[in-house]
């Protein structure tokens, strides 16, 4: 009746909801940040890991999601459940607009084009300071169900958890669909894909729009959770950080996106005790992952799953 993915998603959600009841708000905040990183990474992996398009502007779509939802809430009192989907839709439209010229580019040229888009978004945020708060940033009102009915910390956590689980579930299903296979075909060989009847340009454009939706939702949730946004939070460092999530986690893999985002977004908190040396150690760990696990952290998971299957097969054979 329900697919395996749906059952796993439901169990994950129940476990997360239960976990939220037993931890303090500091841990809840860290879990929120990790889940938001997962949503962004899953979206970027669809674009880069599956459809093969390098993007250095994923953080800009997060910025669009964050600022649109924050402005809708702050200026027009729109509740979060309407503001965040609207922000994601705006991000998708802009993503599709970027996808048009980007679908003609690849490799380093596409990276540069998306980097240019990131700079444009940064300049727009900084220059329209009357609306966005510019470089001084913008405080985001506390999220509300309706009017003055505000969400508490646990309710915010549940919203982020539902969004995260839905993001992972939907990405898994997209990859299992014909469109997901088209994306992988475009990455492996655009010419072969075209010869087989895949509309390469349309697939690329769709991937841009789709990844922008995930980034937009992640941005809207980040604004809600932190309560303050500024352009630096969505700059080139954030874009590069998101790329490391999927590279270290495992390119083209939803599980890899989840593992990479959770491990790397949590690592700075784990490294707090080493204080000013944390950057050096973080970079060292990152290099170690890249050198010794070129297929990403997900390869550990895959290897473990394979061993388990073999062990089970052997035990049944006996």
């Amino acid at each position, binding site marked *: 009746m329900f697919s395996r993915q749906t059952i796993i998603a439901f169990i994950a959600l129940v476990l997360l909801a239960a976990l939220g009841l037993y931890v303090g*708000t*500091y841990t809840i905040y860290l879990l929120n940040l990790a889940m938001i990183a997962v949503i962004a990474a899953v979206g970027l992996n669809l674009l880069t890991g599956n459809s093969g398009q390098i993007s250095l502007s994923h953080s800009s779509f997060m910025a669009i999601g964050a600022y649109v939802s924050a402005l809708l809430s702050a200026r027009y009192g729109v509740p979060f459940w309407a503001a965040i989907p609207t922000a994601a839709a705006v991000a998708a439209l802009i993503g599709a607009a970027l996808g048009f010229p980007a679908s003609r580019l690849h490799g380093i040229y596409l990276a540069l084009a998306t980097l240019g888009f990131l700079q444009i978004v940064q300049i727009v945020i900084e220059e329209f300071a009357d609306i966005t708060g510019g*470089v001084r940033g913008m405080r985001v009102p506390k999220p509300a169900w309706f009017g003055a009915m505000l969400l508490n910390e646990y309710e915010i956590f549940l919203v982020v958890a539902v969004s995260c689980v839905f993001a992972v579930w939907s990405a898994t299903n997209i990859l299992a669909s014909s469109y997901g296979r088209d994306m992988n075909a475009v990455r492996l060989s655009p010419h072969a894909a075209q010869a087989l009847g895949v509309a390469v340009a349309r697939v690329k454009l769709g991937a841009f729009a789709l990844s922008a939706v995930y980034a937009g939702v992640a941005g809207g949730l980040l604004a809600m959770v932190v309560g*303050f946004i500024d352009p630096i939070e969505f700059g080139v460092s954030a874009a590069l950080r998101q790329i490391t999530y999927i590279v270290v986690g495992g390119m083209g893999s939803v599980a890899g996106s989840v593992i990479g985002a959770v491990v790397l977004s949590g690592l700075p908190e784990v490294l707090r005790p080493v204080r000013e040396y944390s950057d050096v150690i973080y970079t060292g760990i990152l290099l170690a992952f890249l050198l010794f696990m070129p297929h990403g952290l997900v390869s550990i998971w895959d290897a473990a799953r394979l061993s388990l299957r073999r062990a089970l097969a052997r035990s049944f054979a006996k």
Partner: protein
Amino acid sequence: MKRILSILAGAAVAVVPAMAAAQQQGVTADTIKIGAYGPITGPAAYIGLAGRDGMNLAIKEINAAGGINGRKITVVFEDDAHSPTRALAAVKKLVEQDQVFAIMSVAGSNATVGTIDYVRDKGAVMYVSIASAPPVTWPFARNLFRGGTTETARYGELYAEYLATNAKNKRIAIMHGREEYPRNEGDATVDKLKNWFQIDPVARVEFNINDKDFTSQLIQVQKANPDVIAFFGNPAEAAIAMRQARELGIKQPFFVGSNMVDPSLVTAARANAEGVTGFSLIPFLPGANSPEMKQWEANWRKEYPNAPAGRPNNFDLLAYGDMHVLAEGMRRAGKNLTTDSLIKGLEGIKDYRVGPVATPRTFSDKHHIGNLTLVPMQVKGGSWEPVQWQSKRQSDILSRYK
């Protein structure tokens, strides 16, 4: 029976305050645990590392002198990497996991503002040493205090008055960075020039952080023929702009924002810095010839013998002075140290400073802006020297707190 009741009542009177003290988070019979945060990694680490070291030096002195009413101060410091998101994580950890009594911010403006709503809700005292962002002190919050740096609007008042009284033909050009701090300085200065002195800048140009070429901005400034060029950015940018200005034949003097009134500007700009003016948040800069500063620097170097070049800097001094102010507030709070008694202790501080190396701090129950004093300085003979100049105008800053 009456006697038993009176003994019980007496015991209750004695026990209740002791219980209250015992229940106060972060305060034990012999320690006060405070939390602090600032950037010790990333591009703004020069702020947080200096803030942390200056604060720790003060804590060492306070504890060596017997602590606060018999209690020694311990500190938990967390990195915010100059990010509001990380700053909020740091403060949540300090309050909920480390259970600190009060928080000291040696962070930048945006990182500090990112924590404000949470700290307001929690009610713990947060003493902000370095961030100048307006939301720290307005709207007024009983548990938020600003120490060493002053209000952005106060910079504007003093800069505008100094520029207007010293520019012969009232022709002032403004160059400022696009980041938060220099833009705030530029806006506040333009606002006061217009409203107090009816002066519009003859040119106003912007640049980006880490820019290496200011030729186009300087040509615009040159065309406007100003008496003085007010430059708000970072020392590295100012040094390049000053060299390029001289190369373009621009001879007008430079006035710089308070964050650039620092030995690093003289080191970077060398001869081009000669004659540059600006306002300092501290009476003496590290490297000054005053005996008090030399003694303070000797103490600092004894504590940090392997410090990198350029240290101690202004942020060491600001955090050092502010840690002493926070300690003075705790001292005035008395033996029964609670958040409420600390707030009252701090609000009782009038013109307090730990020594000649710090500017005085004053708080009241109406406002928590500790410092409205800045010292005008000029580069003479390769070092920053105080300039004889007094502000003649009443500040507008406190009028909204009545």
